C-alpha cells in the first residue's frame, strides 16, 4: 500500500509507483541510501540535472510508535560532495503517512530557471505541481502563512527560503512543527535546501488526508502490544531525562564546565559567562513568555522541544536546540539567549543550517571581519545572507569556503561540513565519528559523549563504531532521543518490525541492516571520489591542547584512514 511519488521537475510529470517490493522494510535513512545507491550517479553535480532529492518517512511513520513521524531528506550534498541524509521532526512525515506515501523523489532540472513550482498534495490524495512564482524570494515564515491562508491552517509544509533559492551550500529545508505549525524544524545539514532550489521547487504542501489510513500490519495485535510496551518505557525514562525536563540545552550543564562546548571558534577557552546558558537560565528564558516540553511531532512522548516567544508574547522560534545554542553562542563569544534565539529565528526564516552558520560566524570573528561577541554584527551577517549581498553570498557557501577565503588556519570542518557542538579533543570518539562517517562532521552520525566517554583510543574507536550503527538504526525508524531508551530493547524492536513487515528478524539483524546502510553510504562516497586519506580532523585540533584537559586530538591518522584497525 505504500507509494513512491516521482516528480520530474523538467517535464513536470508526476507518477505514482507501487512501492518497490525489494525496498519493503526500508525506511528513513536506510531507504535514502538504497535509492541514492540505485538511482543517482555519485559523480553527478549535486545541483545538476542528474541529481535527485528524496524524501522518505521512517519505517513506522503513522503507527503511533514514539517519535516515529520522522522525515529523512537525502541527496548528494553540495557541501560535502558525498551522500547526505538529514532528518527532521515536525508534521510532514505524519501527513505523508496519512496519504500512504513512503517516499517522494524529485529529479531532473527545469530548462527555464525563471520558473518556480511547489508540490501540492490535497486532502483527497491528488498530487499536482502548482505555479509558485508569486512566492519567489519569500522566506519560510511568510511562505507558510500564505499556504495556510490558501489551503487551511492545518496544512503541513516543507519549504526553502532565500538561501535555498540562491543555492547556498549551507541552506536547510524547513518543516512546520506539530502544534505551532511554524516552520521552525530544520533538515539542516548538508545544504540540501539548495538541491530543492536547483529543481526550482519552493516546497511541498500537504493537506490532512480525508480518508482514514489503514496500515499494512502483518500482525496488528502483536504490533499494538509491543508498541504500548515500548512507548511506556520511553514515558518512564522521560520522567528523569534532562532532555524531557529541560530540553537539549541541558547538555550545556555538562559540556560547558568540561570545556567540550565549542567556544571562540573552537579554541575551547572557558568563560565564566557559560553560567548564563545553563539549564536554570534556559528555563527562565524559555518559560518567561513561552514554554519547554513541547512535542515537535505527533506521538512524541519525550518533548525535548520548546516554544520561545518574544517580549510581546509573539512566537519567536521553536526547536531551540543545544547545537544552535553552542555554535551561534559560545563559539562566537555570545552568551545571551535572546540574541541566539533571534539568530535561530533568522536562520529558520531564510533557511540556513544554524550549525554551519554559527561556525561560519565564528570563523569570521576569528578573521577580524566582525568583533568577537558582537551580537549586532553577528545578526547582520545573517541578514546579509538573507539579502544576498556579496558578503552574504560568500557566507552562504559554508564555513570551509569562508575560512579559505580569509586564509584562516583554524577552519572547524570535516569533509567541508562544520563540526557541531562537541569539541573533538573533549570527546575523541565523537571526533573519530566526525572524521570517518559518510555524513561529514555530524553529531547525528554517532556521538560517544557522556560522563563515561572513553578516553583511551581503542575504546573510543569501538564506541564510535557502535554508535554509528545505533544512529543508523535510529535514523531509519525514530528520533535519536527515543533511541536513548529503545536502543536497550532491540530484541523487542525487532519483534515490532516483524509484526509490521512479516519478517523474522532479531536484534542482530537490525544491526546487520545498519551495517549495510553504512556500507552503501560509504560505497556511494568512494564512487564520488572520497578517499580514506580524506578522513581527517583539522590540524589545529592535533596541535592545540584543549584548555580544560590539556589533551590534543590524538587518534592516529592511520586509524582514521582505516590503514590500521583497533584490535
Amino acid at each position, binding site marked *: 500500500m505504500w507509494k513512491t511519488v516521482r516528480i520530474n521537475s523538467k517535464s513536470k510529470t508526476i507518477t505514482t509507483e507501487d512501492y518497490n517490493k525489494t525496498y519493503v522494510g526500508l525506511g528513513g535513512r536506510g531507504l535514502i541510501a538504497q535509492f541514492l545507491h540505485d538511482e543517482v550517479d555519485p559523480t553527478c553535480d549535486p545541483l545538476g540535472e542528474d541529481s535527485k532529492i528524496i524524501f522518505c518517512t521512517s519505517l513506522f511513520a503513522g503507527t503511533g510508535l514514539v517519535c516515529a513521524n520522522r522525515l529523512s531528506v537525502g541527496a548528494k550534498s553540495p557541501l560535502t560532495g558525498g551522500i547526505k541524509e538529514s532528518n527532521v521532526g515536525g508534521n510532514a512525515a505524519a501527513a505523508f503517512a496519512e496519504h500512504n506515501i513512503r517516499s517522494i523523489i524529485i529529479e531532473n532540472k527545469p530548462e527555464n530557471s525563471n520558473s518556480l513550482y511547489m508540490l501540492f498534495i490535497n486532502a483527497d490524495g491528488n498530487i499536482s505541481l502548482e505555479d509558485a512564482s508569486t512566492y519567489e524570494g519569500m522566506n519560510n515564515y511568510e511562505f507558510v502563512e500564505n499556504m495556510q491562508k490558501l489551503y487551511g491552517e492545518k496544512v503541513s509544509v516543507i519549504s526553502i527560503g532565500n538561501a535555498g533559492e540562491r543555492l547556498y551550500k549551507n541552506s536547510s529545508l524547513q518543516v512546520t512543527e506539530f502544534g505551532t505549525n511554524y516552520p521552525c524544524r530544520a533538515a539542516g545539514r548538508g545544504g540540501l535546501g539548495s538541491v530543492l532550489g536547483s529543481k526550482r521547487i519552493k516546497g511541498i504542501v500537504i493537506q490532512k488526508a480525508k480518508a482514514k489510513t489503514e496500515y499494512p500490519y502483518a500482525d496488528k495485535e502483536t504490533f499494538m502490544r509491543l508498541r504500548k510496551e515500548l512507548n511506556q518505557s520511553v514515558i518512564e525514562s522521560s520522567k528523569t531525562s534532562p532532555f524531557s525536563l529541560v*530540553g*537539549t540545552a541541558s547538555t550545556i550543564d555538562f559540556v560547558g564546565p568540561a570545556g567540550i562546548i565549542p567556544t571562540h571558534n573552537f579554541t575551547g577557552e572557558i568563560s565564566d559567562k557559560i553560567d548564563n546558558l545553563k539549564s536554570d537560565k534556559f528555563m527562565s528564558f524559555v518559560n518567561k513568555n513561552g514554554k519547554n516540553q513541547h512535542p515537535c511531532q505527533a506521538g512524541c512522548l519525550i518533548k525535548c522541544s520548546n516554544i520561545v516567544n518574544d517580549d510581546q508574547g509573539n512566537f519567536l522560534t521553536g526547536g531551540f536546540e543545544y547545537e544552535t545554542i553552542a555554535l551561534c553562542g559560545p563559539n562566537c563569544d555570545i552568551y545571551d539567549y535572546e540574541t541566539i534565539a533571534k539568530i535561530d529565528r533568522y536562520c529558520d526564516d531564510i533557511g540556513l543550517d544554524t550549525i554551519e552558520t554559527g561556525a561560519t560566524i565564528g570563523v569570521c570573528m576569528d578573521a577580524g571581519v566582525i568583533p568577537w561577541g558582537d551580537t549586532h554584527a553577528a545578526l547582520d551577517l545573517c541578514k546579509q545572507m538573507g539579502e544576498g549581498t556579496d558578503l552574504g553570498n560568500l557566507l552562504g557557501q559554508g564555513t570551509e569556503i569562508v575560512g579559505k577565503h580569509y586564509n584562516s588556519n583554524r577552519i572547524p570542518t570535516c569533509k567541508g561540513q562544520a563540526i557541531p557542538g562537541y569539541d573533538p579533543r573533549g570527546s575523541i570518539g565523537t571526533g573519530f565519528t566526525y572524521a570517518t562517517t559518510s555524513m561529514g562532521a555530524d553529531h547525528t552520525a554517532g556521538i560517544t559523549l557522556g560522563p563515561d566517554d572513553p578516553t583511551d583510543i581503542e575504546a573510543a574507536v569501538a564506541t564510535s563504531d557502535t554508535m554509528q550503527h545505533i544512529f543508523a538504526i535510529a535514523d531509519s525508524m525514530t528520533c535519536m532521543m527515543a533511541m536513548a531508551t529503545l536502543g536497550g530493547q532491540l530484541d523487542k524492536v525487532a519483534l515490532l518490525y516483524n509484526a509490521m513487515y512479516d519478517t523474522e528478524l532479531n536484534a542482530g539483524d537490525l544491526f546487520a541492516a545498519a551495517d549495510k546502510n553504512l556500507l552503501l553510504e560509504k560505497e556511494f562516497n568512494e564512487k564520488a571520489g572520497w578517499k580514506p586519506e580524506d578522513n581527517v580532523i583539522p590540524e589545529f585540533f592535533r596541535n592545540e591542547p584543549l584548555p580544560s584537559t590539556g589533551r590534543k586530538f590524538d587518534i592516529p591518522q592511520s586509524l582514521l584512514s582505516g590503514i590500521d584497525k583497533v584490535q
Partner: protein
Amino acid sequence: MIIFNNQEFEYIDNVTISQFIQIMKDRKVLNSHNALLITKNNKLISPSEIYIEKVKDGDIINARVMPVGG
C-alpha cells in the same frame, strides 16, 4: 563472582548479559530506564549481542548510559 559497576555479585549460571542487566534492575542495583552501553572485561558489547553473550564467572561488567545529543 561478577563485578558490575564496581560492585561484587554472586555468579549466576547461564544468563545472558541482557538477563543479567535485568536482574540488576530488579534488585534496584541499576535504576535506569535508559538504553545502556555495556562493556565486558573492557570490551564493548554491541547492543545486539547482549541477548546472546553469556556472563561468565569472574567477568567485569560495566554499564553506561547510551550517549545521544541534540
